[in-house]
């Protein structure tokens, strides 16, 4: 393992991310924040939604912001760089094993997902106004879930980025990302799906469910959520799976 090269690759991604920081934050966070404003502020203060909806919504918004930011940070550049221009080749020729470049992509994506999460917490909180009953009684559980969710997003982004061609980006959003978010228990707790028995168990295949429910358990434990140990275990399994899948696909895609 060649740490100098690994660090150089990471600083390249950091450099590019810093250069595009504002654009990337707007791209990833504007939609969830507008959603937060309309549902968490307008509809709750108008009386259409109960105030406690704010407490349900905030962890969900953090989860999807991190998931979207992580996937975008890894998948989109990869799709572009593996295309016609083969931009990625200068890094594939760096003196390091190709698998480590995949690991580096995952770590860079994690950092970007965590930054998105850190930005969205205060902003979403402020957007909602008072009423979100967030507890910071479990800081370690919260930090742990943030790391698990960030890894899920970036490793998932790596697997997606190595499977999807440039012509299918639109399809990726409408076929994969949108259902994952709508059925990811982002805007409602998992227990609300009880009337839809089949669906309630089908969504358990969607790792975003564990991201939202896990953060819910860490931030607003008074609300309904899946038991913390279960969400943590499920996220860990999904993380390991996506990391393995992502690295395998990357190594395959890297050579012809």
């Amino acid at each position, binding site marked *: 393992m*060649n740490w100098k090269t690994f660090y150089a690759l990471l600083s*390249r991604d950091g450099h590019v991310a810093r250069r595009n920081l504002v654009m990337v934050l707007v791209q990833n966070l504007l939609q969830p924040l507008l959603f937060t404003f309309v549902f968490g502020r307008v509809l709750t203060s108008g009386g259409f939604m109960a105030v406690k909806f704010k407490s349900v919504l905030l962890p969900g918004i953090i989860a999807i912001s991190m998931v979207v930011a992580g996937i975008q940070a890894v998948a989109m550049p990869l799709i572009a760089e593996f295309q016609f221009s*083969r931009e990625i080749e200068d890094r594939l*020729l760096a003196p390091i094993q190709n698998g480590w470049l995949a690991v580096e992509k995952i770590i860079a994506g994690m950092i970007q997902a965590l930054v998105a999460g850190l930005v969205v917490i205060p902003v979403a909180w402020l957007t909602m106004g008072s009423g979100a009953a967030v507890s910071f009684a479990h800081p370690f559980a919260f930090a742990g879930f943030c790391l698990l969710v960030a890894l899920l997003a970036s490793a998932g982004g790596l697997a997606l980025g190595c499977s999807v061609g440039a012509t299918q980006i639109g399809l990726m959003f409408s076929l994969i990302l949108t259902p994952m978010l709508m059925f990811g228990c982002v805007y409602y707790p998992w227990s609300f799906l009880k009337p839809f028995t089949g669906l309630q168990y089908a969504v358990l295949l969607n790792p975003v469910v564990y991201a939202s429910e896990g953060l819910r358990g860490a931030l607003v434990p008074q609300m309904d959520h899946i038991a913390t140990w279960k969400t943590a275990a499920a996220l860990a399994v999904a993380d390991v799976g996506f990391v393995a899948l992502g690295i395998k696909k990357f190594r395959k895609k890297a*050579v012809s």
Partner: protein
Amino acid sequence: MGIGIRIEHLSKVYDSPPPSAAGARGFSFGPSRSGDRKEKKKKIEIKALDDVSLEIPAGQIFGLLGPNGAGKSTTIGILTTRTEPTGGRAFVGEFDVWKHQVEAKRLIGVVPQRPNLDFSLTTREVLLFHGAYFGQNARERARRADEQLEKFKLTDRAAQMVRELSGGLMQRLSIARAMMHDPEVLFLDEPSAGLDPQTRLMLWDIIRGYGSLGKTIVLTTHYMDEADELCQRLAIIDHGKIIAEGTPLELKSSIPGGYLLRLRFDRVPEDLFEQIRALAGVREVKSADSIAADVYADRGGPLIGPIVTAAQAAGAEVRDVHIQEPSLETLFLHHTGRSLRE
């Protein structure tokens, strides 16, 4: 001590389109779209290299010459760890490039056929990060980056984003980048494609200069003059096989006679080719089709008179004559029956 290259029985069969072809295909996906069901299931198989063995001594400028699709880029792809060989082995120095990729990557610099520069960076940053990937410290890479910018006349573009550069400037930057970490072996895949004549000459000087430092340089080209001018040794490759190898001089002198006269007649009476074959200086007559012939001979112009006379005596008329002096182009034609440009 320079680093040599050894290729043993290398073969490569693509079961999906090779990356360069895949990119150009765009949305339509070739044969899999049309045809009956059976054909749909059939895998695409492209034999790009067929049992190629080759030795490139350390410190030489070595040329791989051949038409498009001959297997040049695949050879470079395998030697630079970017392509997995289907069979055989390739060594850079003592390292098997597929088994010891990191060690091999440390020794090589690569200029790809199409610039694959990092579009998210500026010109100078491309060089700086490349240096960093190869473990150069901040001061060293800054110094080397500025040297390279100067050498390739890119200093005034240092702060410009790469995506804003023209094709020729990108090509120059690709070459500067490949030399940034001072590799022992430099691979250049069609380095002068898309360069203006002046830049091409500059590139030749730079390549020669780099070669004089004892580095090994492997370049592919389909320009005869480039191969002739630049390379100390050449392999001519076609349809995945090496068809001739040697110094440019050796190769040229292997053509029978050296000169090639490409003739066209209005019609060819039965014994006309026989008569031409009997003329003084003619070594070989190859009939390309019923009214054309390639005549290999040790002289060019002086043969025209006798050929015209022979044709007239046989009742035919010469319609077209083209004389080629001894060149690699003629050599390629002699071995394959096709022009390099076809």
